[in-house]
């Protein structure tokens, strides 16, 4: 009988199995201790490490304020927002670039092969495939549920009127910050306050379900800005500049139409210009400049309107006064002359100083400011004229208009120790040796025409807050007694006379209907060489004038940079542009005629 309890002959070592089992027990104990260390003792460290990866902070962009104009009582937006989407890929997650490229091209068009490179690019987790997708397209991309594709919304400015007031408006760069023009100057008001979202997210940044760490602050939208611009005048002004840019063979045209009684800009334009919707494709960044406010030039004889105003104001001259013009003055050893066509030395009056644009006449006015009845320039006159230019007419400093990059220009200091200060200041009397912007010129003359109040020129009519509150931008007086109220009415006929003189001189386009008053002044300015002195064959043409019925309603300024048309730059480059603008204003019914 077999012994049922005999030892098994199994020779596989149970002791060795137990050694392995014991080893496993030891390993499991080590693992448990390690888990205790990682999860309990070092919990703070690892939970912080997790949060620093997982907790992401996002700015929620505030929607940018609109830019609007008033048109027959209604508010019409000229700059709107549209949310567009950037399509990007996380290439390591793109499994089949060919298939994905095909899917993308079915949604947004384009050749599939053009997307493959961006989809399969190595060494990056963010590769932009296409820009400016619509919301519909973005949703279609999301429906693909491809973990390697994502879209990112961003507000883009939309310009329903194309290049209307482009340089005045400026644009919003791809960081969402206003650049140039109003967008830059009013960026704080337009931008609003971005909100914030702090959330635990997936690795691709998609916020996960609400947790304790998630916090959200709502964004505050920006204010809407209602401009002073008259959209009709603005459009027509731009057409005129585009046309006259060619006819005068100009290198740059700028013009402003302003209401002298409150500083409201009705139109402001430059040519050449650009379409702000395509600012990114503009290669010449100088097209972004609003030259009407950021390009000071030596204005030339248009300055004589201000010289006359100052001289009239202090009683140095009288509107109907005559004087003997020697046709040249020698100042600091330098000849100041008139042009031969003006007839040489003879008796002249204030009207003919402006109509013939006599530099000797302007110099004579400065002499009268120095010492009435004499023909010398002294420190007294220089100080008075400097004071008028800088403090009364506010030349050589920014006006504070709501524009980016406004320039200040330059007025020479009244440094009486300068041996050639007399010549320097004689030059400023007829607009040389001093540089000012078109806006500074027109704002200064506005203060003379309106009776002596310098209003800060402005483009903003009102701000409308997100809650709908309207903040009216009241006219801001920067200088109350620029000149006496009597000076304007004295200057107006003198400037009307200039227009008539040109009409009689054969400039038939200066013929305006008799129930309107139109006055003006040409300027042909020598252009300074960068190396010193002046070019003798390159000129800038300028023009300043007004148009109205019983009284001037708008002032118009034109700067024509280096027109190549033959003849004096002011008469042939600036004046016809002014005439076109005034004819347009009258013909389109923007001007109330005399009653």
């Amino acid at each position: 009988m077999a012994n049922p309890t005999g030892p098994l002959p199994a020779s596989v070592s149970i002791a060795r199995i137990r050694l392995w089992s014991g080893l496993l027990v030891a390993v499991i104990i080590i693992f448990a201790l390690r888990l205790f260390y990682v999860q309990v003792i070092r919990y703070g460290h690892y939970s912080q490490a997790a949060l620093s990866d997982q907790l992401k902070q996002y700015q929620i962009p505030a929607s940018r304020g609109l830019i609007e104009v008033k048109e027959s009582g209604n508010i019409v937006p000229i700059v709107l927002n549209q949310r567009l989407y950037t399509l990007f890929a996380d290439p390591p997650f793109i499994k089949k670039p060919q298939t994905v490229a095909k899917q993308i091209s079915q949604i947004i068009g384009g050749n599939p092969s053009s997307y493959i490179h961006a989809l399969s690019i190595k060494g990056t987790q963010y590769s932009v495939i296409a820009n400016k997708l619509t919301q519909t397209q973005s949703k279609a991309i999301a429906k693909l549920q491809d973990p390697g594709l994502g879209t990112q919304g961003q507000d883009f400015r939309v310009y329903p009127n194309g290049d209307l007031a482009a340089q005045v408006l400026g644009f919003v760069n791809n960081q969402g910050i206003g650049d140039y023009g109003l967008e830059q100057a009013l960026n704080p008001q337009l931008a609003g306050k971005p909100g914030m979202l702090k959330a635990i997210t997936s690795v691709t940044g998609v916020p996960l379900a609400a947790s304790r760490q998630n916090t959200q602050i709502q964004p505050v939208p920006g204010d809407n800005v209602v401009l002073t611009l008259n959209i009709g005048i603005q459009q027509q002004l731009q057409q005129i500049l585009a046309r006259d840019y060619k006819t005068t063979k100009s290198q740059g045209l700028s013009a402003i139409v302003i209401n002298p009684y409150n500083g409201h800009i009705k139109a402001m334009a430059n040519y050449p210009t650009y379409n702000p919707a395509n600012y990114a494709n503009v290669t010449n960044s100088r097209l972004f400049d609003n030259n009407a406010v950021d390009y000071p030039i030596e204005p030339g004889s248009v300055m004589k309107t201000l010289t006359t105003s100052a001289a009239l104001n202090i009683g140095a001259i009288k509107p109907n006064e005559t004087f003997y013009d020697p046709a040249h003055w020698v100042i600091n050893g330098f000849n100041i002359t008139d042009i031969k066509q003006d007839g040489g030395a003879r008796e002249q009056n204030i009207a003919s100083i402006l109509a013939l644009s006599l530099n000797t006449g302007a110099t004579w006015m400065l002499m009268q400011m120095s010492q009435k009845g004499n023909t010398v320039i002294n420190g007294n006159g220089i100080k008075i004229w400097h004071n008028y230019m800088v403090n009364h007419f506010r030349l050589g400093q920014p006006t504070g208009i709501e524009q980016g990059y406004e320039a200040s220009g330059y007025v020479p200091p009244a440094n009486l120790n300068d041996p050639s200060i007399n010549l320097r200041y004689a030059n400023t009397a007829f607009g040389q040796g001093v540089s000012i912007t078109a806006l500074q010129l027109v704002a200064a003359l506005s203060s003379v025409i309106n009776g002596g109040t310098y209003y800060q020129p402005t483009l903003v009519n009102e701000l409308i807050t997100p809650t709908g509150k309207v903040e009216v931008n009241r006219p801001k007086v920067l200088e109350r007694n620029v000149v006496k109220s009597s000076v304007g009415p004295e200057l107006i006929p003198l400037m009307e006379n200039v227009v008539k003189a040109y009409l009689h001189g054969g400039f038939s386009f200066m013929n305006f209907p008799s129930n309107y008053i139109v006055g003006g002044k040409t300027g042909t300015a020598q252009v300074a060489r960068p190396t010193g002195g002046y070019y003798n064959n390159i000129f800038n043409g300028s023009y300043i004038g007004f148009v109205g019925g019983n009284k001037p309603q708008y002032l118009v300024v034109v700067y024509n940079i280096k027109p190549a048309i033959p003849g004096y730059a002011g008469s042939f480059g600036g004046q016809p542009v002014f005439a076109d603008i005034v004819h347009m204003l009258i013909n389109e019914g923007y001007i109330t005629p005399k009653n």
Partner: protein
Amino acid sequence: MLFANRGQLARRRTRATSSPAFAGSQSNGDRLALLRRHKPDHWLIVLCAILLATGLMVIYSISPALAQTSGVSGSYYVERQILAIVLAAIAFFVTASIPLERWRRSYKLLLGFAILATLVAIALPVNPNYPAHRWVRLGSLSFESVDLLIFALLIWAANFLAIRLKNGTINNFKKTAYPLLIVMLVVGFVVAVTQSDLGSTGVIVVMLGLMAYVAGLPLKRIFIFGGIIALGTFLAIIATPYRRARLETFLHPDTNCQTTGYQACQSIIAVGSGGFTGLGLGSSVQAYGYLPEADNDSIFAIFAEKFGFIGSALLLLVFGALFYRIAKIGERAPDDFSRLIVFGVLIWISVETVINIGAMIGLLPLKGITLPFVSYGGTSVVFFATSMGLVYQISRYGSHVGPDRDRLKLMERISGNDYSGHRRRFGGAHNPGFGGRGRTKEA
């Protein structure tokens, strides 16, 4: 009493003799006396089911994150895993019911299939996302050839060593150690070099080596093996840049967080941020794209993030219990072959578990090894279930005899066993239950 027992034994003997599993494998009458079919160890099923359910629960809870990062529907992973579990259950019971002797006889067929599958995997063009020749794809089905290879090698090695033991040639270098070494080198070359799967190579080498060790291969040989393995591993790491990078990453994890150490860093962050009690079942953040292979190799880290120290320690305990049950079954296995099979399965499962968890908690380098029964993935689940089926079958025939057992105490145990109701709650009549009550009694 004695007679009754004897009668019982006699009855069982006939059953055992008729059992094809051991027919002809034993010549010793005393031995046969102890071979009787009894209740299998149901704890195996319970513990494996707990692990499978844990894995499925984690996969279910992170399926929105998986869907988000991989672009499939939310239920995709859960459905696939349920299908894998169903297949695994079928495989388990089929394996358990096919007599062990038949498995033993068909090792050549299995090896043939495994070699064929490996060759097919190497020959097939690779998926650009997993640029390693590891997968056999048949239509929509695919499996990793190496799992079949491990299974076939397990049966081959158990048979090989059992024969050597029976013939007494276990100490014969030419007949035992030499062929084993050749197999290891060939497998090492094919799996580690051609399939770039150093992790699985490690599992195979450790499994074969330890099977040889418990079979009684002299320690000197084992040391020679160990030296060769260490050298081979060293060469494999030095020769491939990505393995060098992984080792470098393992040695300096914090400095490589953004590059090669990304997964290692993210896994320990997941584990650590779970804290003592965990973030909760639905609150894993690391699964949302931070931790690669969240459903697969990294599932332990996600589990630890969700359930904290308490949960992960419990999971370790479940694995420990499973290993304990398998080890016990191995100790009681009726013959060398089945003992080697059980021990081989224990090594296979425990080594993969240790490599996987060790990597997740920053104690071992990352190896691309799944966590048995928990990780997502059909091949691994099905093959572990198959191997557990073998263990389950063997658990039916376990004796309580060990070489160190006193005969009388053994008899006492056998007879007592039939009357002690509390030992029969689960599994075998000879089950001491958790905690080894039987041992304390005999001590």
